[in-house]
């Protein structure tokens, strides 16, 4: 209905005054120029104005915990969780708890993994799943990996069920969804330290707390995907269900949930991947497993073993990701009539047979049960020597030290000092100006307001160090990722494999990006930036390629028929149309960077992350939450500006 179309831009920007954004920016610049003559009050929020958020949060949580007795509830939940965790721990690595039958021999688990792989995606996935198991065992990290997986085995199903239920609720009740959406947005930007400490305080230290933090961390995408999937069920399928006389429960059980299968399984994939990412990070609260080992090795600069663990984590990530993705696209197959039941359930039978068979074999053959120290093929120290040798090579060493020297002295430190030198008000106004330009008054208030809150917490300087790290890394990532993305997008032969690499790299737990950084640059600011750069380049490239490739073919043909040269086509047609999509990549890069900069705290940064890490040791819940809030608010502020811009731009261009 063309006649009902209203000029979108006009409606959306009701109350938009064109000059305001510039005016705000001008004031910000003036304040910056006038910095040397400004009274201290205008540069930083003075001490007497700083609001005691810390105390408030602490009071609130103490109230919840002790006065309202929440601690008893959470302790009860802990007990249940612990029971499950003990059971999986017993089965997977033989912790002496009920049911006291573990550990299951590694060969049996490897065989089952391979059969599942075969069932979901044929020989290639069977090889991947089986091969990963064999690698983990041979390298001597079986127990570590099982410690990690035993938590995922509890956390992922729990996150799935909670996420699914919340998703259904949000779909049923728009009021609940209205509360849920911003909550999830905050949850997704909170630094992981802020998940960890409350988990430790409210749930028991150790695997239970780690498990809770993992569950909470993995829930948001499950909720979002469930709601999305349920909303997307075609109306006619719904009506067909209703006309068949389904009750409400039957509708949900037999119509909605099965019809939303794809989205729900995408949610499952994300739950698994986020669980893995978080479980590795729970090393910071002393949870045993791959993460803890990696953290310890990196702290003691044992690069060879770190590298091996990195490979293990990556392999596990790829395996879990591929298996769950294969499950998404797997469609049920029909059998011809009269197929006997053992043929229909062939794979299940093979799996059970192998499992039992190998358990029996393992009773007699020790290596089939577990590999002991000395039997593994770890080459940690040899790799260590090679890495050290390569890095000590005069040319490499000269290059890295030169890079370190130049970057730190001439670029990073000056940039950091500049950010710290700027008056708070100036930065707040800049963000407000950007907010106003993309979304009018409301966006200006949100973007500027969030930073103003950060200023009022008194953690401004630390926060600016975080922002500095994020932006220097994202800028470098753009310098690398955008040209590479554009190049890749122009050639189909390149774009496919690069997209695949990007997608795979995105499934790695963020922690492992620190390994090469520390290898190359040691422990300093540059390695932090380097780790963020690798991490953030991935989404930038990915979305650039996707944006350019999704430009409609007719438009390219139209440009070609208008006689555009290759570069004209790129700059006049492809890039303008790809910008909204590229902006999503930019946004993701920033979100990734915020996440990573906090993790890098253990390298010894000076930003909010460092302070956050300290709160873990001191059980300072109030401070932890304030700092977490600062990170979340800054991230949300950027997120809002970029996504708002991308959305309006998309509508203006009329591209989906």
């Amino acid at each position, binding site marked *: 209905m063309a006649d009902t179309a209203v000029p979108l831009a006009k409606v959306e920007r009701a109350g938009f005054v064109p000059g305001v954004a510039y005016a705000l920016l001008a004031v910000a610049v003036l304040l910056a120029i006038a910095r040397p003559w400004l009274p201290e009050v205008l540069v930083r929020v003075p001490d007497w104005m700083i609001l005691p958020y810390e105390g408030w949060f602490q009071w609130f949580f103490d109230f919840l915990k002790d006065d309202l007795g929440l601690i008893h509830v959470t302790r009860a939940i802990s007990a249940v969780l612990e029971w499950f965790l003990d059971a999986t721990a017993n089965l997977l690595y033989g912790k002496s708890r009920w049911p006291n039958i573990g550990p299951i021999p590694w060969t049996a688990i490897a065989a089952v993994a391979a059969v599942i792989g075969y069932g979901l995606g044929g020989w290639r996935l069977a090889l991947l799943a089986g091969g990963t198991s064999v690698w983990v065992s041979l390298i001597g990290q079986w127990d570590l990996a099982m410690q990690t997986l035993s938590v995922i085995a509890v956390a992922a199903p729990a996150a799935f069920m909670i996420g699914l239920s919340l998703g259904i609720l949000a779909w049923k009740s728009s009021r609940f969804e209205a509360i849920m959406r911003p909550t999830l947005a905050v949850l997704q930007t909170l630094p992981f330290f802020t998940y960890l400490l409350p988990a430790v305080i409210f749930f028991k230290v150790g695997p239970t707390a780690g498990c809770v933090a993992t569950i909470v961390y993995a829930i948001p995408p499950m909720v979002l995907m469930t709601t999305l999937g349920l909303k997307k069920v*075609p109306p*006619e*399928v719904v009506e*067909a269900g209703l*006309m*068949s*006389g389904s009750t409400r429960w039957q509708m949900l059980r*037999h119509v909605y949930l*099965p019809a939303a299968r794809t989205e729900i399984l995408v949610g499952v994939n994300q739950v698994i991947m986020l669980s893995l990412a978080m479980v590795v990070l729970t090393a910071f609260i002393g949870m045993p497993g791959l993460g803890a080992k990696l953290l310890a090795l990196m702290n003691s600069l044992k690069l060879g073993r770190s590298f091996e663990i990195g490979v293990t984590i990556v392999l596990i990530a790829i395996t879990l990701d591929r298996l769950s993705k294969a499950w998404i696209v797997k469609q049920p197959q029909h059998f011809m009539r009269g197929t006997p039941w053992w043929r229909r359930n062939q794979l299940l039978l093979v799996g059970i047979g192998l499992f039992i068979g190998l358990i029996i074999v393992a009773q007699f053959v020790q290596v089939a049960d577990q590999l002991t120290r000395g039997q593994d093929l770890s080459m940690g120290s040899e790799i260590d020597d090679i890495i050290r040798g390569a890095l000590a090579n005069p040319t490499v060493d000269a290059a890295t030290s030169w890079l370190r020297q130049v970057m730190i002295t001439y670029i990073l430190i000056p940039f950091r000092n500049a950010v710290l030198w700027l008056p708070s008000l100036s930065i707040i106004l800049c963000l407000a100006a950007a907010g106003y330009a993309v979304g009018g008054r409301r966006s200006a208030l949100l973007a500027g307001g969030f930073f103003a809150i950060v200023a009022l917490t008194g953690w401004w300087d630390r926060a600016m160090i975080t922002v500095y790290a994020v932006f220097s890394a994202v800028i470098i990532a753009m310098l690398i990722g955008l040209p590479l993305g554009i190049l890749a997008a122009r050639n189909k032969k390149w774009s496919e494999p690069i997209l695949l690499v990007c997608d795979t790299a995105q499934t790695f737990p963020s922690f492992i990006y620190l390994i090469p950084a520390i290898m190359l640059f040691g422990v300093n600011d540059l390695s932090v930036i380097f780790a963020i750069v690798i991490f953030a380049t991935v989404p930038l490239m990915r979305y650039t390629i996707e944006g350019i490739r999704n430009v409609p073919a007719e438009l390219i043909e139209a440009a070609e028929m208008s006689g555009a040269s290759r570069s004209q086509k790129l700059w006049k047609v492809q890039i303008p149309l790809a910008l909204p999509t590229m902006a999503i990549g930019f946004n993701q890069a920033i979100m990734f960077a915020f996440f990573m900069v906090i993790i890098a705290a253990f390298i010894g940064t000076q930003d909010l992350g460092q302070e956050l890490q300290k709160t873990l040791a001191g059980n300072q819940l109030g401070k932890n939450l304030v700092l977490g809030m600062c990170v979340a608010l800054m991230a949300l502020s950027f997120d809002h500006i970029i996504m708002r811009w991308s959305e309006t731009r998309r509508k203006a261009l009329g591209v989906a």
Partner: protein
Amino acid sequence: MSAAEPVITCRNVWKLFGAGADRYLEMARGKSFDQIREDGYITAVRDVTLEVRRGELLVIMGLSGSGKSTLVRCMSRLNDITGGEIIVDGQNIMTLSERELIELRRRKMGMVFQSFGLLPHRTVLDNVAFPLEMRGQSSHDRRERAMEVIKLVGLQGREDYFPRELSGGQQQRVGIARSLAIEPDIWFLDEPFSALDPLIRREMQDEFLRLREMLGKTIVFITHDFDEALRLADRIAIMKDGAVEQCDTPDKIVLNPATDYVAKFTEKVEKSRVVHARGLCRPLNGHAVEGPSVSGDLTVLQLARQLVNEPREFLPVADTQGQIIGVMRRQDALDILLGPA
């Protein structure tokens, strides 16, 4: 057939979309479609009064946005109406509780959808058995019954396939089989063949007529295709902007379009293919009946050869039992065949 009692009765049915439509309804009466839209409401069904009689095939015809799909969804209460009342089998369906409504759908109604509405995760057999499963029939019973309807629509051998493994025409056969599984009294078909290729559509229409002949159900059939309507209908209701412009037999609509809007559809129609001898029939009124009669069920086109050579000015018309029901003026029929002189 006209004496048959009504199965569905719509009295002054209104359906408005928009927030607070119930309260707005009083103001909407008397306003035009566009005026109502300016007030922020969409008129989907506007003051519709019609009856669907037992055993008849009523086609509701209209272009997209004319409210035809909404009207049929009101009859099955997939949509709640804003005003008026709808009586199905003597019950006002707006007063039914959720339980009773579910019961009504489980026992009496079947519906076929334009894009089939098949459940993608179920095989053909499980899709067809779905309504039976919902009402709690045992798995043996429902398998038996589902196989029966699958045979009826000619899909035997495909019962273990999944919808995605079937062509569009086959998928719609599954949709039809599903809607017939519970042996409904009332059969709703919402543009069942619109998503199919023209050749398949024709084949499915024939198939549909065969089923109709066999089952003798009360049918409400929705289409935007006037030719399809003419081909299938006992009566046609033509809708525009939510209101019924004319509701009558195909013959009468083609011969006497009630409004200019209806006339636009009938203009291009080859009338001789549509109009039956029955439609041109006038009362005897003392006319002497002479010679052999013609069957009222034949179209003017089918009678063309006879008409051209016919010496009589008035031809007696007989119904299916051979009873004389009136006479047809030869000139009237020729006018339709050749166009007015």
